[in-house]
């Protein structure tokens, strides 16, 4: 019932076991070597190049790039929109998960599949899908192109599954005994939800929200067609990077990129902390 195309659960990190079971043999050693070389060529060196380019002109140059009024406006817009979308998702995502787990009605399975669609769609297609209803030829007569509402809507669309898919399994696993215990102690349904169920969901909501926030901060494809890229108005961080790059300003692009990388890493760390805390509570 919770099939998800890209399970937005946390990383597939190995659990806390201190070490693997086998020592490296010559064959597996060579395998590890090849894997590390490829991983470095594909991921580590290019990312290092970004950091290198950002650090090239020293910290002052890095700072002045980000502090530039237009860049700063783009960054601020990105963060504000991402925070708004995250807040909405935390609430609505939890409600959606709740209805999908606790309610029974015909067509529920279809809704369950619908949740995954924004994730399954290529980002540029996601943008186009939204424009078909809310674009210049909108049958509603509402055109979101080049508006902040448009950016908000696109981000809401692409981040829909995160909270839903992290909360859903936790809700399924919740022990009915615990709710019965609360009821027999006199707690109403609302009180049981607020004091018993919600606290158990908080780690999942937090995990889903941070994944969604990270995605919203770095979103590009779905915004390309919707954001008009107007400086100070509808320009977001990822589009700013593209603009820097097209203007042959690698240092500027790298500076913004490093900022996004930092957000990505902070998110990973937060998720790790959450999962450790949950594991401890048992």
């Amino acid at each position, binding site marked *: 019932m919770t*099939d998800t*195309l*890209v399970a937005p659960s946390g*990383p*597939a*990190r*190995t*659990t806390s076991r201190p*070490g*693997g*079971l*086998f*020592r*490296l043999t010559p064959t*597996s050693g060579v395998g*590890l070597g090849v894997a590390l070389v490829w*991983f470095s060529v*594909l*991921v*580590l*060196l*290019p*990312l290092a*190049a*970004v950091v290198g*380019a950002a650090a090239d002109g020293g910290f002052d140059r890095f700072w002045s790039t980000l502090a530039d009024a237009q860049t700063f406006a783009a960054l601020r817009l990105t963060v504000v929109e991402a925070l708004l979308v995250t807040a909405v998702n935390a609430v609505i995502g939890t409600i*959606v998960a709740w209805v999908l787990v*606790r*309610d*029974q*009605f015909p067509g529920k399975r279809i*809704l369950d599949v619908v*949740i995954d*669609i924004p994730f*399954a*769609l*290529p*980002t*540029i*297609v996601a943008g*186009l*899908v939204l424009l*078909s209803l*809310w674009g210049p030829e909108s*049958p509603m007569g509402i055109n979101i192109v080049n508006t902040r509402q448009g950016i908000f809507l696109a981000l*809401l*669309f692409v981040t829909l599954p995160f909270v839903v898919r992290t909360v859903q399994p936790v809700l399924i696993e919740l022990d009915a005994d615990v*709710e019965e215990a609360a009821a027999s102690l006199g707690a109403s349904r609302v009180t049981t939800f607020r004091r018993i169920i919600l606290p158990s969901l908080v780690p999942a909501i937090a995990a889903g929200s941070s994944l969604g926030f*990270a995605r919203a*901060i*770095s979103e590009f*494809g779905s915004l390309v*067609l919707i954001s008009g890229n107007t400086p100070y108005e509808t320009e977001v961080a*990822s589009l700013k990077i*593209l603009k820097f790059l097209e203007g042959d300003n690698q240092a500027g692009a790298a500076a913004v*990129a490093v900022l996004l*990388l930092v957000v*990505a*890493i902070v998110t*990973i760390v937060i998720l790790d902390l959450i999962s450790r805390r949950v594991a401890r509570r048992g």
Partner: protein
Amino acid sequence: MADTRQIRARKGPVTYLLRAFVIAYLAVLVIWPLFEVAQQTFAPADVGDEGGVGAFWERLSDPSVTYAFNLTVTVAFWAVLINTLFGVGISLLLVRYQFPGRRILSVLVDLPMSVSPVVVGLALVLAYSTGKGWFGEALASVGFYVIGTTPGLIMATAFVSLPLVIREIVPVLEEIGADAEMAAHSLGANGWQTFRRITLPSIKWAVVYGVVLSMARSLGEFGAVKIVSPGAEFRGETATLLIQNRYTNYEEPTAYAAAFVLVLASVLALVVVSLIRKEDHS
């Protein structure tokens, strides 16, 4: 799976209110726009023109469109192949072997999922482009060019979908444990025999699942590809780039037709994934 516990089965006005809200929310955010896309895809381009499947097919048969889809499939094929080999290998190493830096590597291999596609593209440019990149000149001197070529597209696509296979295999490997593998070793099987006859059958579905996810993601990659590709007709224009180019050039019918194909591919992936999940559980 209806809840048999009375405490959860009881339905009040809030239940119906939440249900209606969730249905309305998903309808407006996802279902309606998708419906609109389907309509636009089969609509006549101009008043008096033919619409329907014929027109849709004609738009797709344009040589530049077939080129784009060919390129997309080629790139996705290689990216998925590389990621599958790498993913299976690195998952085995991370779960079964002990080596220094194992934990940090397990965190790092998940990083690509959290990096903005634009940053991925930028990173590859800053590392490998001739003129701007760290290694560009060196590669150019041996006649190898990454940026603007198909290998560059493959690398960009492989980068963004790198963790998908690993995320599926690692939990399964951890769950099944190494007992059977050790037993096989003690019975005289060598590493390859153990892998082929013991390990592979148990991670089979996880690998297939990871491959489907990677394929879906690779076909739809936009941001990273946008930056490393020249992105012009017959020159590195993948399906997603084609959608953007055509939409911005007011050739919306072609954009919608290409987008519709990708929507179908995503839905197909969703269906396959849910079938695999069922197969895996039974």
